[in-house]
């Protein structure tokens, strides 16, 4: 747990500092040279567990075998053994009349066969879906065992970049509502997402290139917020720009290195 813990505590400290500086900044609004953006990192939670490692599987098998050897017989198994005894005794000798009174209608063996047939009829949903095979990065059905994040293509300055959806902060609203607005602009209003907490998870600041830089506009700071996608039904969402759902490992394909470094700090990938 060391890796996720360290950024967590560091984040806590830096978010406290952010709170102080934001309060100070709001009072001196005119002289601040930084433009603020609120970005939303929308996560789709994993739907199935990750496959076990080799050592984990070996340990699990060993423990199962140990437990099986140490455990007692269950009711069903005792019943089955008794009935097998009865059958065996019937075949060897003729004690039918004495034991016929305790004869049950359904034998334990029959029950087992019935359960087996039922189990064979059950078909589990596939773990690797079609979207996985076709590597369709736009669908939500891909990679059911890891977190999926929303990336959107946005125009910053004169470049088209892949980013987490962000929108500029307007004075008078909280940064969290900025992030929610960002989500709403890209995905429409009917998104059931749960924002976690009022504090941002990370910050990325960059200075504008010298050509655009002025006294009042040194650079921009982007504050990241996290939200969980509650429903996986995005049919109502009107996606205006290019979008992708990617895992943490695939982020490197799309994001710039500095940006990626800051984003990776707050992403938990277990």
């Amino acid at each position: 747990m060391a890796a996720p813990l360290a950024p967590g505590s560091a984040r806590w400290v830096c978010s406290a500092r952010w709170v102080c500086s934001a309060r100070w900044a709001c009072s001196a609004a005119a002289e601040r040279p930084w433009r603020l953006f609120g970005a939303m990192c929308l996560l789709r939670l994993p739907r199935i567990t990750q496959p076990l490692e080799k050592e984990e599987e070996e340990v699990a098998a060993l423990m199962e075998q140990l437990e099986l050897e140490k455990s007692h017989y269950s009711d069903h198994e005792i019943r089955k053994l008794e009935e097998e005894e009865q059958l065996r005794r019937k075949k060897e000798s003729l004690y039918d009349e004495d034991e016929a009174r305790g004869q049950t209608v359904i034998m334990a063996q029959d029950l087992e066969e019935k359960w087996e047939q039922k189990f064979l009829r059950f078909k589990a949903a596939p773990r690797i879906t079609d979207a996985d095979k076709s590597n369709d990065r736009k669908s939500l059905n891909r990679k059911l065992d890891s977190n999926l994040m929303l990336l959107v293509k946005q125009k910053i300055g004169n470049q088209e970049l892949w980013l987490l959806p962000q929108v500029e902060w307007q004075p008078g609203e909280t940064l969290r509502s900025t992030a929610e607005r960002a989500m709403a602009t890209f995905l429409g209003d009917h998104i059931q997402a749960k924002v976690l907490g009022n504090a941002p998870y990370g910050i990325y600041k960059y200075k504008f290139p010298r050509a655009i830089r002025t006294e009042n506009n040194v650079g921009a700071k982007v504050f990241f917020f996290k939200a969980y996608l509650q429903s996986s039904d995005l049919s109502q969402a009107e996606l205006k720009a290019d979008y992708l759902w990617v895992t943490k490992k695939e982020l490197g394909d799309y994001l710039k290195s500095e940006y990626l470094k800051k984003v990776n700090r707050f992403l938990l990938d277990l």
Partner: protein
Amino acid sequence: MFALLSFSGDALLGCHRSYRSRPTHGIGRFKYLLPKEVPKRKKEKVQMKEISEGTEYQYGDINIQMTSYDVCLVEHFAQYVHRLCNRLSIRVNESYAMPTKTNEVLFLEERGSKMQLDAVLTTHQRVVQIRGLSSTFAPILLEIIQSNQPEGVHLLMKQHTEADFKSRLKSRPELEELLAEMS
């Protein structure tokens, strides 16, 4: 007299107690020197501990409830959550189990003779109670617990209320009737 008794090798052999007339009578006594112990009262009524309300930056009492059909899974997960909170120095008030609920599932097949296949499902619930979770850390903790959640375990985090406390106690209808009659 005493010498004769010791030679006879009787039951009085292992007896070193001095008689009352001896000067060393009562030589080993010490209980009268200890402070007086208050006799313990038999069964104290289970009092509800104060439920702290959170301030703006801290949550009060929070219950993390884990439910599942599988006992081992839910118990191990509750242990994991408890130890995680210990490591993250979050104060854990108590960690208890709610009574298990048993459900019988009956299938009514209507092919020929009406058969009833039974299945017995037991639902187990474990609760870990936490106090003093700061609002900046709460989403991180929630994320860690959610990403480590095993399959088949439902997770619920909610504020602790009096109703939650009362649900752990059994109601005594006869006592309530008598009390109603008295008042």
